[in-house]
């Protein structure tokens, strides 16, 4: 660690910690908007009867769509990035610019469908410092696990954020 490190021990102490659980709604209209924005052509993302005819419980959430957190003015959702993630706060972190470094989705064989209500729990998996083209950067890796009503893990979203 160099003298002018921007990563403190206090910041490092949150690695491995989980944020508050959030309720995630997988809304049918949101599924269609997501599918439209991507340009999906498979009707399982648009037409519930068609999706059922293909053996699904309902309208299917497209790859990369896990729903949205419930926003209230008292409990606002993140509008820069992904609302399903709520990692614990990083103490002493100043205001920095943010870039998305990468995303991974993992599924466990369960359909995620319109009308589902999921619980998401986000952990800080890693926090490290790197010096790159943009100067000193913090590389934050988060892992959001999504559980269905029965408490079964249905998806994991891992993300890398670059703060500079």
């Amino acid at each position, binding site marked *: 660690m160099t003298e002018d490190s921007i990563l403190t021990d206090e910041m490092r102490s949150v690695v491995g910690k989980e944020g508050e659980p959030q309720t995630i709604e997988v809304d049918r209209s949101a599924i269609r908007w997501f*599918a439209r*924005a991507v340009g999906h052509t*498979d009707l399982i993302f648009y037409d519930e009867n068609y999706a059922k005819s*293909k053996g699904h419980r309902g309208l299917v959430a497209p790859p*990369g769509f896990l729903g949205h957190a419930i926003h209230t003015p008292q409990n606002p959702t993140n509008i*820069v990035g992904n609302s399903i993630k709520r990692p614990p706060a990083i103490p002493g972190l100043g205001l920095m610019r943010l*870039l998305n470094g990468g995303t991974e989705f993992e599924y466990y064989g369960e359909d995620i469908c319109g009308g589902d209500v999921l619980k998401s729990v986000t952990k800080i998996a890693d926090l490290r410092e790197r010096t790159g083209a943009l100067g000193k950067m913090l590389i934050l890796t988060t892992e959001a696990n999504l559980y269905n009503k029965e408490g079964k893990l249905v998806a994991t979203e891992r993300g890398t954020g670059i703060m500079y």
Partner: protein
Amino acid sequence: MADQVYFEDVNVGDEIPKLVKNCTTQQLVMWAAGSGDMYQIHYDKDFAAGNGLPGVIVHGALKNAFLGQLLHDWLGDKGQIKKYSCQYRGMDVPGQEMICRGVITEKSQEGGKNVVQLDIWTEKEGGEKTSPGKATVYLPSRG
């Protein structure tokens, strides 16, 4: 969507059908609404310039979702995505062609599943890979 692809029909080194995208700024706004990511660098030119960017840029997560579509369209009704990822290494901008591609790197059978691994990526004209990643999928068997 194409005909169903089966495990027996694919080989290491095969390329899956390409998916070509060319984002409009309107598509980026639709994505902002669909995903919930309202970061201004994706629709406000002045804000983007103030952040040292050449202009508005395509959301990383949208490129990830394009790769999800690439896999979904290839997998058909009976295939399944287990895992897919990409890193955002280069910027893509509206009005620029973005080609989503995938090549099979491994085939195996584990726990009754027909597992196929792929390298997936988005590239610009000229070949620069702006979002390289990996995928693990399950394919049905003809058997």
